[in-house]
């Protein structure tokens, strides 16, 4: 390290005269993008996201081909399989081929929750927030820039994940000729929907992050909301039920609402239609983001 540095170097240097206008959204967006791309944890988390989604999707697709094979091989001794049943299963798999290949999103959502939380909580855990808000004290601008940059990164990575999962999954399903293509009805919506689902998941976590500020707390809440609530919903009494049954509650569970767009096979009874479900999910995320904004604007940093 250099020793005592002469202060004869003009402190002013190349900053130049104060320009007109004011520091605003676009500069802050560039700043936030620099932040997200300049730490390693971003790359590790995104790599983990892609790996988990593609890997689990591939595994699940392979499992489906094996299931089909069992039926096509005929009955193991003592089992009676009606004629044409293998064809029935093949048809079922083919009609769900897109969402089968996206099954890894179930785990992928947990990873994007971590990334969404870190996008804001790492500012607090490192103390960087004080530097950020001193350079740009207009907090609404900082929050918007952060949200937009994270949202765009999450959407791009979500789409890459979703398409990659789809293609790998179809490759495996095609070994038993039960694959589908993007040209089939609804398939493109399902695959794009997978990316949208991940992005909104991340934003939901981002909003909670701005409210709670502590990484562990945010991750726990995010996973509770998206994963644990979904598991709990499986224990609700099934139909026919009275006023508090699975069929009334199920579709409102965040994961079920959100995964309607990619037609996850485990998204409960009587799910919302794809876009309505996604709309409900977006509304949940919006509540979290608006809550986060209010806290971000008001609370001492």
């Amino acid at each position, binding site marked *: 390290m250099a020793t005592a540095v002469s202060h004869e170097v003009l402190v002013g240097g190349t900053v130049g005269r104060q320009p007109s206008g004011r*520091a605003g959204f676009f500069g802050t967006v560039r700043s936030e993008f620099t932040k997200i791309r300049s730490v390693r944890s971003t790359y590790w988390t995104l790599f983990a996201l892609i790996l988990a989604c593609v890997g689990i999707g591939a595994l699940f697709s392979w499992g489906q081909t094996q299931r089909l094979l069992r039926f096509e091989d005929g009955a193991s001794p003592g089992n009676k399989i009606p004629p044409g049943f293998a064809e029935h299963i093949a048809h079922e798999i083919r009609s769900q081929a897109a969402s089968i290949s996206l099954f890894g999103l179930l785990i992928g959502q947990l990873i994007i929750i971590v990334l969404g939380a870190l996008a804001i909580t790492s500012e607090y855990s490192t103390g960087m927030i004080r530097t950020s808000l001193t350079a740009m004290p207009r907090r609404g601008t900082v929050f918007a820039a952060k949200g937009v940059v994270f949202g765009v990164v999450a959407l791009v990575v979500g789409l890459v994940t979703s398409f990659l999962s789809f293609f790998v999954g179809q490759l495996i399903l095609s070994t038993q000729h039960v694959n589908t293509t993007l040209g089939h009805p609804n398939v493109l919506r399902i695959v794009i929907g997978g990316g949208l689902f991940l992005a909104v998941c991340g934003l939901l976590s981002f909003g909670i992050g701005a409210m709670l500020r502590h990484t562990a707390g945010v991750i726990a809440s995010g996973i509770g909301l998206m994963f644990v609530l979904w598991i709990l919903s499986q224990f609700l009494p099934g139909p026919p039920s009275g006023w508090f049954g699975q069929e009334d509650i199920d579709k409102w569970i965040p994961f079920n609402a959100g995964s309607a767009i990619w037609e996850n096979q485990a998204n409960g009874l009587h799910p919302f239609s794809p876009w309505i479900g996604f709309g409900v999910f977006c509304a949940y995320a919006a509540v979290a983001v608006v809550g986060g904004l209010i806290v971000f604007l008001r609370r001492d940093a």
Partner: protein
Amino acid sequence: MIEARGLTKRYGDTLAVDNLSFSVEPGRITGFLGPNGAGKTTTMRLILGLDRPTSGTVSVDGKPFAEHPWPMREIGALLDAKAVHGGRSAYNHLLCVAQTNNLPKRRIGEVLDLVGLGEVAGKRSKGFSLGMGQRLGIACALLGDPKILMFDEPVNGLDPEGILWIRNLMKALASEGRTVFVSSHLMSEMENTADHLIVIGRGKLISDCTTAEFIAANSQQSVRVRTPQPDELTLLATAAGATVRSDEGGALVLLGLTASQLGDLAFENGIRLHELAPAHASLEEAFMELTASSVEFHAGLPQEHAAQTADAGRVR
């Protein structure tokens, strides 16, 4: 120029900043002095808008800090050397800060060289020593070539060379007409650096005056004298109202007379002097006195007392 009017911040039951009014003028170094927990950092956070005051206002060049079009050209602040993401390189840290105010990229290299971190620009800051972190924070504060610089305990973790460096830097910044506001609990550091002092204790303003006034008001001036006739001089000086003691080296230390008064007294009485030197009490001693009085407030002295001591330069 920073102006605080009745600034108050309460955290739960604790009054961290209690009705503070002061102004920090450009072109000089203003030391912000107080023992740990006196509310210095909180006051700086209130200036920057990181915290919202419970009551009162603080303005920066006439308006709240957040309303300035280019905030980094207004205030550069080093509140906490650890306010960085350790996983980010020094260069990228400064880049993301500079981008918020559309500052040119070449400015980053300039400030890194200025603080002596040019060679480690690409290194992640988690590997930095405390002193290097401090320099990175200073580089960050200087990015926007701001009119006002605010440093919270900037010499923490710096070696003597670094301390000298930052002292010179602050003097240079003030001589360029900038406002330099620097907090410290190190009296000796402020004595050598600050032109003006704002002293607080328990969130309250204790004193707001020039450093010279502060020392004069807070400590008695003493005179050191050597003479072959110590007994006669002691007698005369005591009669003139001074108190006299002798120090380890055999010289006399007199309180209550100036060096010229004493010199005249000796001359008029034909006493030979071999040495006559005024000795200024250090700021350290002055601060000790204030801390002591702060303890007295705590013990429940009348409110008027605090008001009196808040008068500029007139500290007990």
